């Protein structure tokens, strides 16, 4: 899997966006990356994707450093793909089917197979009814489904999700959570967010990033008990952790767990 080994990333103007960042995606099935606005989450993702090249350090896929020539990157991006924060920017074509089929057509896959895969991916994000729709007619939540579906279609080994719940209503957020849970059976997932409740429930291993540096890491139940680091990075504890600390309840991993055990 992917290992980020002490990378630095410098912008053109010289500011250091990432400082000595190391991340190991073998630490969990769903890895959370939390940090405030401008902490470097998206920059880190773009480095992992090979869009940006770290100025120091290496990114390894299956213990091999990734190569930055065109062909290697093309192969690599079939294994590692990303759902961007703003679905409007991710959709390229005006028709759902064409947009989903786009990467597969670029790989010269037969159209029959593409059709099957588009259907399967849309079914996974519960958006089969949108297949023939123009993307402009979709709501934000529907667009999000399509952009997640569009990333699933490549059958990648690693899926990066940048702020997958931002701008979504509670019902859709919940659904994204369950989609992530399903997907984690077959692929490694990295989620960035500053929605602590979401991260706490969805992820099993968490990295905290602030001003381009990793301030802390650990399993979900531990990381959120460290008040100092959270405050320093401008984050908050998830509500389940708060009630654990203030109301003397055991530490539950999810709302449903709490409700089941309340007596």
């Amino acid at each position, binding site marked *: 899997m992917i290992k980020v080994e002490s990378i630095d990333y410098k912008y053109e103007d010289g500011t250091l966006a990432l400082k000595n960042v190391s991340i190991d995606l073998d630490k969990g099935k769903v890895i959370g990356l939390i940090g405030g606005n401008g902490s470097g989450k998206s920059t880190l993702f*773009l480095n992992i994707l090979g869009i940006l090249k770290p100025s120091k350090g290496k990114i390894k896929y299956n213990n091999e450093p990734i190569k930055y020539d065109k062909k290697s990157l093309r192969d690599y991006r079939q294994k590692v793909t990303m759902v961007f924060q703003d679905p409007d920017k991710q959709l390229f*074509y*005006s028709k759902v089917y064409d947009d989903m089929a786009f990467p597969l057509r*670029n790989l010269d896959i037969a*159209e029959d197979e593409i059709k099957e895969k588009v259907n399967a991916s849309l079914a996974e994000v519960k958006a089969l009814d949108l297949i023939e729709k123009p993307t*402009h007619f979709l709501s934000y939540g529907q667009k999000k489904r399509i952009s997640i579906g569009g990333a699933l279609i490549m059958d990648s080994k690693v899926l990066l999700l940048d702020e997958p719940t931002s701008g979504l209503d509670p019902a859709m957020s919940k659904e994204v959570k369950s989609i992530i849970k399903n997907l984690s059976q077959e692929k490694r997932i990295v989620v960035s967010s500053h929605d602590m409740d979401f991260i706490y429930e969805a992820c099993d291993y968490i990295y905290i990033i602030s001003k381009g540096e990793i301030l802390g890491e650990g399993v979900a139940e531990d990381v959120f008990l460290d008040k100092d680091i959270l405050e320093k990075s401008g984050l908050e504890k998830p509500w389940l952790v708060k009630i654990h600390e203030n109301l003397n309840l055991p530490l539950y991993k999810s709302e449903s767990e709490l409700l089941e055990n309340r007596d």
Partner: protein
Amino acid sequence: MLIIDKYAYSNRLADSDPFLKFIVVVIALAITTTIRSIYINIMIFAMMSFMTTKVAGIPLDKYFRILSIPMGFLLISTITILVSVSKIDIFVYSINMFDYYIGITISSMEESIYIVTRVVASMGAAFFLGLTTPLNNLVKVFRKLHLPKSIIELIVLIYRSIFIFLEEAQEIHTGQELKFGYSNFKNSLRSTGLLLRSLFLRVLLRYKEMVIILECKLYDGEFKTGD
């Protein structure tokens, strides 16, 4: 969102054979450019607008509103053909200014009517294709015609860029309007200047993001349509 694109994807002919539509339009264009007849031009326009509005189901008022944009340009350019200047009064209608006559002659009138009908017919045909055919289907036609890959790439990217451009301009404009940026003439001028400046920056930014998306989607310099 561009209204033209919305209709291209949602009209009743969206899924019909793009080659057939393309051929019909090419024939119509060939007829109006080669045969010099006002009546044929009018007939072609009538046929095309019938197919666009009645058959494909694009609302009549929207259709004429879209059509009115290029009509504006057409009218302005017709005036330059219609009106001529001469020292001798050879005009049907004219006004005398100093030593010159400015007016309309019979032949310039005939020529203008003919040109207007020809342009209107061609526009009707082009709009029929544009309003009823999704971009990807047009690309299919271009690929069949063996248009060079780079030309097709340009077409798709330009089409996409128009959207980015309009979306960003619309967003900036709304933002400015809410801050009273267009409340009077002076403000409007200033706001328009600012709009152009930030539009340029934002379009470049969106372009960068688009390139990233295309790379993630394994784009390799050719837009494939799956046929």
